[in-house]
């Protein structure tokens, strides 16, 4: 028995020694690797720059950009990870916590810049970017509260934000239904009637309108934007109305948009697949000529030009209420996007990437292919070649007005947004319920939503105040805002006084 025990002891000691040796060896190798890596970095040899985002529509152009970048800077290898928005939200938090954050990554959806900075996500870009780089951008790109904090640049927007609820229409279906493609509908009634005519003339082969019914935001955005043309004062920068200073989601302009869509559903104008598909599928079916109208953003144009070169389509501004226009589409301010990780070991190389990515050459590629409008000066005007893309830009600028931003007025208000709990069901859910037939009358739901949003905002303001933020309900009210004018830097100055 004793002999057996001794044998076991020896085996155990042997295993432990082996493990210890292997651990030492492995840590020694790691140290050696680290030293090698550091020495390589310092001698400006081979480094890997990690970039992570969710810009899927850009993938083909980005792949080429990375190839060109690596060819230009042979010592830098780009490790690019493309995720979905949801995947990104999960991944980035873990990556930052474990000290493994990518060198460049965008701010998570819904997060304000100061929250990201407080969370040790980004570092100031100023030491690495010169004045020439900063001068490439339009006025208003680098503003405290949006992309800057305490006078330092932390983030660069992805694109020029335009309303993404313009209407694309199929000219061939227009002609078949006896409509004039050069004179698209202008009011709610005309729009509804046109969709009805297209459905009737197509006899089951096509329908008046198609939407990605499973994508809630594709229901929410048209109500928010179009109701603003009716005077709702709703906009994507704030949960409350600029007109009433309250969450007036049950106001007349909102109900009118809801009634319009409900009416179109009753007419049988919606493509029957609408409720079962997401936005990309709806875009594809419109591209195949299965619907007369679709409400979408400018990024769709590049997709159709590539996938459906024979599609003959036009762009039109959203219709206004029959009683006339009371406002304009809300045009958002520049939103923060790409930033440099606070823990990056390669800030110079990351800055090089930013300089090349936000160069006129690469941004022109994106504009030329109809992927986005850039915020670089003059590029949209010179690089846009697709007529519909140019038309989109002109129509969007003509029919929208820059809305005030609460964070630009008071950067401390980001503490309110960090505490704000988005009530559900939201505006998009309610319209989806109405079109699917699950809701008969949206009025009660909209009233409840308005109450919930007001309460949620009050609670968020109180919670932010309790943590020391200098904020108040007045930050969300802009007395000098006018529905027909762009809200500019001087307006912020005036309202702050």
């Amino acid at each position, binding site marked *: 028995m004793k002999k057996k025990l001794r044998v076991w002891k020896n085996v155990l000691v042997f295993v432990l020694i082996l493990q210890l040796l292997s651990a030492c060896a492995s840590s020694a190798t790691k140290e050696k690797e680290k030293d090698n890596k550091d020495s390589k970095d310092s001698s400006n040899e081979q480094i890997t720059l990690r970039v992570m985002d969710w810009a899927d529509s850009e993938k083909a152009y980005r792949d080429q950009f990375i190839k060109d970048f690596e060819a230009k800077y042979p010592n830098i290898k780009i490790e690019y990870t493309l995720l979905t928005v949801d995947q990104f939200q999960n991944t980035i938090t873990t990556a930052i916590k474990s000290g493994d954050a990518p060198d460049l990554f965008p701010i998570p959806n819904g997060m304000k810049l100061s929250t990201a900075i407080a969370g*040790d996500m980004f570092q100031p870009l100023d030491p690495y970017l010169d004045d020439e780089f900063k001068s490439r951008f339009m006025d208003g790109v680098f503003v405290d509260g949006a992309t800057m904090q305490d006078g330092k640049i932390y983030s660069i927007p992805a694109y020029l934000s335009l309303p993404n609820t313009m209407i694309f229409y199929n000219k061939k279906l227009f002609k078949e239904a006896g409509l004039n493609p050069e004179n698209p509908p202008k009011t709610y009634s005309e729009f509804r009637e046109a969709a009805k005519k297209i459905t009737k003339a197509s006899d089951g082969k096509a329908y008046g309108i198609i939407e990605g*019914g499973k994508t809630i935001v594709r229901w929410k955005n048209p109500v928010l934007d179009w109701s603003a043309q009716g005077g709702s004062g709703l906009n994507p920068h704030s949960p409350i109305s600029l007109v009433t200073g309250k969450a007036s989601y049950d106001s007349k302009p909102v109900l009118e948009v809801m009634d319009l869509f409900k009416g179109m559903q009753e007419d049988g104008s919606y493509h029957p697949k609408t409720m079962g598909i997401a936005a990309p599928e709806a875009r594809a079916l419109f591209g195949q000529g299965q619907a007369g109208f679709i409400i979408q953003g400018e990024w769709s144009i590049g997709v159709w030009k590539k996938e459906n070169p024979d599609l003959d389509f036009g762009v039109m501004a959203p219709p206004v209420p029959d009683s006339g226009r009371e406002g304009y589409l809300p045009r958002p301010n520049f939103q923060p996007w790409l930033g440099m990780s606070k823990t990056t070991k390669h800030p110079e190389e990351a800055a090089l990437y930013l300089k090349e990515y936000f160069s006129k050459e690469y941004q022109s590629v994106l504009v030329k292919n109809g992927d986005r409008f850039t915020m670089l000066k003059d590029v949209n005007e010179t690089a846009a070649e697709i007529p519909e893309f140019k038309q989109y830009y002109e129509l969007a600028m003509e029919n929208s007005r820059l809305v005030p931003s609460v964070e630009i007025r008071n950067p401390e208000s980001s503490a309110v947004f*960090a505490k704000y709990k*988005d009530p*559900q*069901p939201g505006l998009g859910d309610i319209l989806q319920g109405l079109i699917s037939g*699950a809701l008969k009358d949206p009025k009660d739901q909209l009233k409840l939503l308005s109450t919930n949003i007001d309460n949620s905002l009050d609670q968020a303001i109180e919670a932010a105040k309790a943590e020391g933020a200098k904020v108040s309900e007045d930050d969300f009210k802009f007395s000098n805002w006018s529905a027909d004018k762009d809200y500019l830097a001087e307006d912020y100055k005036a309202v702050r006084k």
Partner: protein
Amino acid sequence: MKNTVSSITTTATRATEKRKPRKKRTMKNEVWCWLFLAPTLLLFAMFQGWPIMASWYYAMLDWSGLTPDSTFVGMQNFINVAKDPYFWNAFKNSFKFMLGTVPFHLIIALVLAVILHRPGLKASNLFRTFIFLPVVTTTSIVGIIMVFIWGSDGAVNDSLFKLGILDQPINWLGDATWSMFTVILISVWKNLGVNLIYWLAGLQSIPKDLYEAADVDGASGTRKFFHITVPLLIPIGTIILLLNVVNSLKAFDLIKTMTNGGPFFATDVVSTYIYRYAFTSEMGLPQLGYASAAGLFFAVTIIIIAIIQSIVTKRMKGGNQ
């Protein structure tokens, strides 16, 4: 008498001598058992135990999951969950989904297993493969493909038209009246194979001589099924039932890809509800703490059901004995 006493003493001494090594052997066996269990226990602690404990902590925080700052709110998240009518709608839908799928999973799979278990059946392996095929197909892929098959102009409506059953298309996934039914139907088809395998394993464990004896006694097929097969399958049946109940209450990927919980929450189950709060928000940040509370609230319910089921099973077993 003396002889008897000495004989008893000798037997007792021998018994004590024998007992000692057996005790040691038992202890040694136990040590080995724990040693073999250790990796599983360690992995459980790391990947399940710890996250469960962490969820309890997160559930008591007002936290987005994206920022380092969080506020301890105690049971407030649980109170808010209990107050939200849409949580209870998701809760109800989860049970609706469970009650819709589990009976079919059990009954259809059992009937198929009995048919495929018959010794003379030709190509039974082929049938088993066909039925099992959906199980090995990724659920999210099944969900995406089914959106097209069950779409308003998909194959299902087309077939029903041709057969003269329908005169206008049904929006199987987009209509709140039909969406839950459709999701249940596809889930039953998708998971039938795995239940078939469970039942086949159960059927193979029944001794053949019981059937042979019944044959000798002249029992009919139905009598054999109800008096031999069913009673002997009850123990494995309860395990299959438990697995199905738990799995159907956890359903996520199929619903997420087919309906995303819609239209207007008609197929919103607790998993999609949790996902929505944990990872998405149209304005402001997501609410991971609240989502954790919703998850735990629901988990406790499942545990209670599992306990009730285990008590019932024990009583049934006791009754049988």
